[in-house]
């Protein structure tokens, strides 16, 4: 029998330690697929963040580096400038990218650095136990906003795609989700575009992916899928925020 779908060679055999229903694994699988389908696994260098996906350096079947919290875009820049033939991707969560690493992501985008960023937005700090993230929705509960995010004292969430779209630099900015097959297929397409952009020296591409964190949301995996549809997408609308390829046409 012919295998239609199965674990891609772009992932190692290591079993992932994410919680049941976590969206990270879905995105990992898509990246692992693309590394093989685009024939770039053997020249790829991946950057693992600090957070739940810190162990991504064990999961992706390519060269990997694990730098300080939030500095993925800077480390990516160093690798890409030192070895322009390498395919460089930085995998980051919302604490990593939108809190401590805000300066690095903004300036990498402004420089239109020829790298690919995969940004997992699950509106919460996962690894440290469910604290408020820069992406936590107004009124949403976390372990440091037990009554719900109070915008008077804790401010508003950061919409990263919209923020970076204010810059002239970036080539491709898109927001997708992995809560349903339709959205996953859109994520596959977006990531493929983001990868190909780098191979064609187009510059900075970022795919922001709304992803489930059932454990820290206090929901079941099924409820989590639904919560993305009913609540999260309303605050973080899906779609392209920048696509220079279309503008140029």
């Amino acid at each position, binding site marked *: 029998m012919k295998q239609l*779908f199965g674990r891609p060679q772009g992932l190692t055999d290591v079993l992932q330690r994410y919680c049941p229903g976590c969206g990270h694994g*879905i995105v990992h*699988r898509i990246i692992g697929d693309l590394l093989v389908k685009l024939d770039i696994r053997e020249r790829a260098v991946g950057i693992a963040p600090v957070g739940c996906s810190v162990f991504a350096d064990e999961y992706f079947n390519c060269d990997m580096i694990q730098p300080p919290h939030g500095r993925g875009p800077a480390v990516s820049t160093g690798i890409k400038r030192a070895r322009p033939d390498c395919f460089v991707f930085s995998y980051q969560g919302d604490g990593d990218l939108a809190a401590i690493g805000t300066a690095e992501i903004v300036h990498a985008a402004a420089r239109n650095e020829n790298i690919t960023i995969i940004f997992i937005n699950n509106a919460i700090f996962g690894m440290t136990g469910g604290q408020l993230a820069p992406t936590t929705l107004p009124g949403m509960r976390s372990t440091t906003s037990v009554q719900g995010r109070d915008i008077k004292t804790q401010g508003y969430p950061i919409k990263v795609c919209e923020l970076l779209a204010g810059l002239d630099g970036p080539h491709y900015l898109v927001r997708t989700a992995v809560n349903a097959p339709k959205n996953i297929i859109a994520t596959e397409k977006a990531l493929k575009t983001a990868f190909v952009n780098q191979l064609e020296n187009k510059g900075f591409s970022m795919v922001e992916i709304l992803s489930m964190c059932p454990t820290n949301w206090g929901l079941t995996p099924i409820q989590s899928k639904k919560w993305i549809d009913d609540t999260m997408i309303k605050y973080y609308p899906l779609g392209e925020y920048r696509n220079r390829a279309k503008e140029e046409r």
Partner: protein
Amino acid sequence: MPQVKILEEVCKGCGLCCDDVCPVNILILANRINSSGYHPAEVTDNTKCTGCGYCFKICPEPAIEVYK
């Protein structure tokens, strides 16, 4: 004929594939538990499988393979 295969020992029983993902509704969580203590997904009627791969796509592990 397409067929779904569940890698029971890899499955964490999250159930993402058992909701409305399968167009022909042939995935459920089993009553038994695997060695990690999860109720793995199981296929109720593989003859109905259309090979669409939706269950594979939403599986975070991935603990699902689809054959033809």
